[in-house]
């Protein structure tokens, strides 16, 4: 019987597989950042051991950095300390750091791919659940906790039980104004925030194949929001074209050899999945979430479910969630006034996202009482945006282009949405308090967010596209 893509990669990375034990899996690339690594370095110190393969770990500062005045010392003492610890730890243990001020600095899941560090066939881990992003290249990539960060630093391996395999096929073609973010929000709304727990998901089908690399990353990024261990997409010409020529990508004869191997990375036609789900791209409209987990989403023209549409058992959590959002069961969201727009995060802060938004807002201006933050995913994205004049389009539209970091995706720095305010956000989590204490989040695509920035309310972007 054939093998799935996931099995091919996993099996070729097993160092030791003992009955009754989790597999010891070799890790090719390990990314670290300031928030989930300090305790792991401390652990090494306590054990008196070095980083086993320092060249296979790369560090950046992203979660906790300010997005204004990055050239100045970080004001907030705890944040500054955390970033300084990363500098100190990486220097002491010989790990490469792309810290503040470095031209490669940025959100860890944005810089790995854009630097050509992320490659097909790799195993990749990071102390951050959205590590699944790198799966877009046909890599097995997943998030880990700090004890596991320490394992990888100490041994370049991790102990894991092999997850089950799921295939999600999206067939057909996407409609106008529908982006890859809408595909993944749609899937999560259909299978729930825990619908893929225990699985590693492979995305396939015509609608996925036709996406650019950056759009594919958006899909894989949110795999974790349905509970999946990770998500991946078989590499193809789109993948190889994207990688070729990037900073750390293989070159010359190495490239040819690599390519030969990468072309073997697909699920065999007779490979078996533990579960297969199929969706039709034509059913997907621009999406928006209304609740406090990413599974609580719907088409932007739809109504929030009424209580009697729900299982009795689901009602208490549902009600609690809508109370937090100050929304009514059965209500529609179109026309709902919003206060903030956040375009950023490892889900949607790449150059294509910024281009798409710039194209759309060119010649328009934001609604008066809306604050719009655009936070590029990396220094390179920022530089590219300036080179293309995108910064000027944003300035004219009244959008603030800030400096790279995680920013209002998790509101660890000062980029917080004030209590009670509504933010339409291109990030990946709408949890209570995620964007600031008592802040209320609507997750959506960059286009839907941009449309809301212009009108000041939840808007079906397709209507503006028709008019323009």
């Amino acid at each position: 019987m054939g093998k799935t893509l996931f099995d091919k990669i996993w099996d070729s990375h097993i160092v030791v597989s003992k009955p009754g034990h989790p597999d010891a899996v070799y890790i090719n690339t390990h990314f670290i950042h300031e928030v989930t690594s300090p305790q792991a370095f401390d652990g090494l110190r306590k054990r008196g051991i070095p980083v086993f393969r320092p060249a296979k770990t790369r560090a950046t500062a992203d979660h906790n950095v300010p997005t204004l005045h990055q050239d100045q010392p970080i004001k907030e003492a705890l944040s500054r300390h955390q970033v300084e610890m990363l500098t100190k730890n990486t220097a002491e243990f010989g790990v490469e750091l792309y810290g503040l001020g470095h031209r490669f600095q940025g959100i860890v899941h944005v810089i790995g791919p854009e630097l050509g560090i992320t490659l097909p066939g790799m195993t990749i881990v990071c102390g951050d659940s959205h590590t699944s992003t790198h799966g877009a290249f046909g890599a097995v990539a997943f998030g880990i906790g700090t004890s596991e960060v320490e394992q990888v630093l100490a041994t370049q391996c991790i102990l894991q039980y092999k997850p089950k395999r799921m295939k999600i096929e999206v067939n057909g073609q996407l409609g106008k104004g529908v982006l890859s973010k809408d595909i993944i929000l749609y899937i999560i709304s259909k299978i729930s925030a825990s619908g893929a727990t225990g699985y590693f998901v492979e995305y396939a089908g015509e609608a996925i194949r036709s996406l650019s690399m950056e759009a594919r990353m958006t899909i894989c990024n949110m795999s974790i929001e349905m509970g999946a261990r990770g998500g991946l997409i078989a590499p193809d010409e789109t993948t190889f074209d994207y990688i070729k020529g990037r900073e750390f990508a293989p070159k010359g004869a190495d490239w040819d050899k690599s390519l030969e191997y990468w072309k073997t990375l697909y699920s065999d036609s007779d490979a078996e999945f533990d579960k297969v789900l199929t969706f039709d791209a034509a059913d997907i409209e621009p999406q928006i979430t209304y609740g406090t987990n990413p599974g609580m989403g719907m088409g932007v023209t739809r109504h929030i479910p009424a209580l009697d549409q729900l299982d009795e058992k689901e009602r208490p959590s549902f009600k609690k969630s809508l109370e937090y959002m100050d929304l009514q069961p059965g209500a529609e969201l179109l026309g709902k006034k919003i206060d903030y727009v956040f375009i950023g995060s490892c889900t949607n802060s790449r150059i294509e996202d910024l281009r798409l938004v710039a194209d759309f807002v060119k010649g328009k201006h934001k609604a008066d009482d809306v604050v719009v933050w655009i936070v590029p995913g990396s220094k390179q994205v920022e530089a590219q945006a300036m080179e293309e004049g995108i910064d000027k389009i944003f300035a004219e539209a009244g959008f603030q282009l800030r400096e790279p970091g995680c920013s209002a995706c998790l509101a660890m720095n000062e980029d917080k949405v004030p209590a009670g305010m509504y933010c339409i956000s291109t990030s990946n989590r709408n949890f209570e308090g995620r964007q600031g204490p008592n802040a209320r989040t609507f997750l959506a695509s960059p286009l839907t967010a941009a449309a809301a920035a212009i009108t000041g309310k939840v808007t079906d972007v397709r209507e503006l596209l028709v008019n323009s």
Partner: protein
Amino acid sequence: MSKIFQHLVSSAVPVPIENIDTDQIIPARFLKATTREGFGENLFRDWRYNPDNTPKADFVMNNPVYSGQILVGGKNFGCGSSREHAAWAIADAGFKVVVSSFFADIFKNNALNTFILPVQVSEGFLDRIFKAIEADPKAQLEVDLENQFIKIVSTGEKEDFDINQYKKTCLLNGYDDIDYLLSLRKEIEQYETTRTYNF
């Protein structure tokens, strides 16, 4: 933090909410510490305290009637971010066991690596636990790792739970994954010689 877990009889703290995510367990703004200690005071921060830092009277952890070393949560406990700080906060607040009818994957790993036992029970049994605590906040639960069962002491109702045997051995004896991985050094170096490229 004790690395060993074998057996526990304790009352429990009920949080009967589904999809408790790690941002609720410990909000990101409290992740700035660089040690593992001290996160307990911010466990469930925004449910537990008002914006002015006064305790919210209606949250279970602020009600002295409830106490114990077992935390009982609704389905899909620990979804969201991979922050191990969530498990550290739970441990730091004095819990040794978390019971739910479903755990998010990463949280489960993180809990085990923090020497907290995640006990997954059926939805029916979870309901009975919540009911038992509702009837008597001091209701005792017994958790036995060796024999893999959880029991509501007052009624004698009992359910077996699953745990992988490797992790069970680790918890019973206080071993951790790094000890095991470090013992594989030869095999790891051997594996490296079989790979030409970094993938």
